[in-house]
């Protein structure tokens, strides 16, 4: 017990001595948490549309004003040749081209049928898809209006209508920040926890001070605990800072129990720190440790469901995400903070993370050799 106390004293002294790192560890997550959610906005709005109106009829005018009034579209080009409109797409000034053919109004009235041509820049699949759907619904709406105008009541049976009453639970205003903040906080906690432990031990290896520790009677698990505890505390401090930022800037207050949140994060930090330790036992230089950590964190972030949903992944990728601790933290943070889920809802995730912590730390202790 006494040994650990001295080791802790040493670690804390070293952490506090290096002010620039300490400031970076505290300030960078806070800055990122303030800025990044503002940037990570996936709402598809402001679809830029270029319209080629070859008809110039009252119908085509009405359709165009309906499109601009719908709120989804921004008219960035009007009345070009198709070639010119394509130029707009090439330079990313337009996402969609709508071409209203010559004789649109006349044909619609005479032949009962008329086509419209839509070309979508589909490099960004989602935006293309949604833009197409929005445009389709505006056109259907316009179509109904024209029908009402042209057809005398009673001439044809009124169209059946289905009303969709949609409600958005947990986030009725569809605020995207609310979704991103817990996820980004999860990533930041992971990065701080994982990187710092890995780097810390490897640094001792690189400058040679680890040999001095190795020749002392300090036990393996003492040494590992002495490294774990300071960074575990640091991780919790960063997490607390993050929660405060989320509350002050974005007004996000966890719906669920804060105690449960801390409980989960504490266990999670043990797992991430264990991972950092494990990496450090395999590396000899800080550069190596950094790169290997970076490689894994990259995969963890991308496969963690922060930006894209795990549901949409193919089955093999879903299997991979089961071995990704970050995916559990992101999921649980969102559940507790946004939906107010309780202990029994997250029991499965908690168990798995506990297992992670156990396996990674024992592996690290096993792998740490006092002699070369």
């Amino acid at each position: 017990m006494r040994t650990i106390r001295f080791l802790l004293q040493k670690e804390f002294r070293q952490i506090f001595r290096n002010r620039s790192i300490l400031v970076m560890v505290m300030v960078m997550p806070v800055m990122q948490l303030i800025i990044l959610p503002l940037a990570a906005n996936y709402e598809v709005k402001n679809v830029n549309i270029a319209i080629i109106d070859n008809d110039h009829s009252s119908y085509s005018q009405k359709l165009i004003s309906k499109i601009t009034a719908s709120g989804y579209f921004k008219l960035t080009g009007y009345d070009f040749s198709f070639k010119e409109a394509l130029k707009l797409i090439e330079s990313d000034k337009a996402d969609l081209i709508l071409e209203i053919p010559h004789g649109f109004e006349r044909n619609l009235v005479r032949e009962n049928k008329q086509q419209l041509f839509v070309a979508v820049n589909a490099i960004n699949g989602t935006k293309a898809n949604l833009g197409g759907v929005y445009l389709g619904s505006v056109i259907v709406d316009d179509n109904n209006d024209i029908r009402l105008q042209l057809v005398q009541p009673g001439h044809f049976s009124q169209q059946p209508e289905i009303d969709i009453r949609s409600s958005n639970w947990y986030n009725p205003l569809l605020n995207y920040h609310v979704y991103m903040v817990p996820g980004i906080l999860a990533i930041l906690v992971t990065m701080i926890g994982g990187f710092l432990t890995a780097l810390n031990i490897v640094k001792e290896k690189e400058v040679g001070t680890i040999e001095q520790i190795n020749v002392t009677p300090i036990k393996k698990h003492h040494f590992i605990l002495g490294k774990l505890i300071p960074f575990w505390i640091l991780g919790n401090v960063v997490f607390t800072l993050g929660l405060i930022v989320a509350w002050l800037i974005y007004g996000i207050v966890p719906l669920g129990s804060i105690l449960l949140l801390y409980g989960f994060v504490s266990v999670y930090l043990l797992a991430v720190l264990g991972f950092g330790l494990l990496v450090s036992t395999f590396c000899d230089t800080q550069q190596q440790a950094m790169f290997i950590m970076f490689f894994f964190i990259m995969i963890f972030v991308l496969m963690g469901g922060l930006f894209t949903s795990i549901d949409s992944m193919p089955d093999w990728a879903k299997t991979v995400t089961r071995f990704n601790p970050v995916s559990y933290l992101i999921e649980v943070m969102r559940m507790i903070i946004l939906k107010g889920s309780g202990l029994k809802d997250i029991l499965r995730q908690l168990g798995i993370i506990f297992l992670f912590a156990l396996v990674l730390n024992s592996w690290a202790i096993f792998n740490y050799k006092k002699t070369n």
Partner: protein
Amino acid sequence: MNDMKQFLTFIRKEFAHVLRDKKTLLILFGMPVVQILIFGFALTNEVKNARIVILDQANDPASQRIISKLEASRYFEISHTVMNHEDLENAFKKGDIRLAVIFPAGFNNDLLHQNHASIQVIADASDPNNATTLTSYVSAVIQDYLSETEQTNHVPYQIQPQIRYLYNPQLKGAPNFVPGVMALVLMLVCVMMTAVSIVKEKETGTMEILLVSPFSPLMVIVSKAVPYLILSLVNVASILLLSVFVLGLPINGSIGLLFAESTLFIITCLTLGIFISVKTDTQQAAMLISLMGMLLPTILFSGFMFPIENMPLPLQWFSNIVPSKWYYIIVKSIMIKGLGFGAIWKETLILAGITIVLLFISLKSFKIRLS
């Protein structure tokens, strides 16, 4: 002549350093491969296979028809358990389902006799993007059902939009992210590696030895950057090979131009790395800045994950000084749209400008004497 020989010797020294560290090398070359595979096969912005639940209180022909249409859609995975309101809430809280569709009793009746019926759709909007997309998919299915009945009723005056998807007819993810991954990998590899390897010499004290040598200090720095330039070009080649042969994404524009622009971007990143190394003293600080400071901003501000036009104005301005944004636009234009230099000269100029400014500041603050 003699200078040239010295310079080559220094470059050889740096190569020896880089090639000696097998673990780092493995990651350097493995990273782009793994990323292309992850992005190519695992990640998609598309929402599909969402678990939804249907509460059919009507159980009549109309509701059955719509349900079978929902079942046929690849966007949904339907779990048929009939639940009451409380079960529904629990399922949402557990994260078991993303959306619930509720048909009220007498759905078909209302539709036939009053020409008007309603369906309730409840979405888990803790993920708002998912929620709106799924809701819009459901309404598209219902719209489809209605237009089917229209067809049989011979409705007059139909406007039929014909949609054509340019560049990417199958709406795949690859055309969007391959340029993104290139920007990301080059940015991180170049910035981090140069910054760290220079600061390492400072930290271990070998920098002093280099600086007292008759070799110009500027050349010491430049020779550090050269191996990473070559490594990065190898990475560009391997990413392109993977995307052509594994993802089936052809290069529509000129390959030579693509490599020339990539070289420019790599030089920008190397300069950024040098800049960071001049400003920091320890490897840890250099790493934290180039990683924590670069990773998320590069992902966010290059525009391949999130559309830049959605961001608040100050952030849109900020995105202009992120080099990867310009490189992303350039690669997309050459590779996917098949455009020539005429379409991207502006972006090229901006990248070159950023490089020169960074280089100038680094040289200004580069100290030949250590402390």
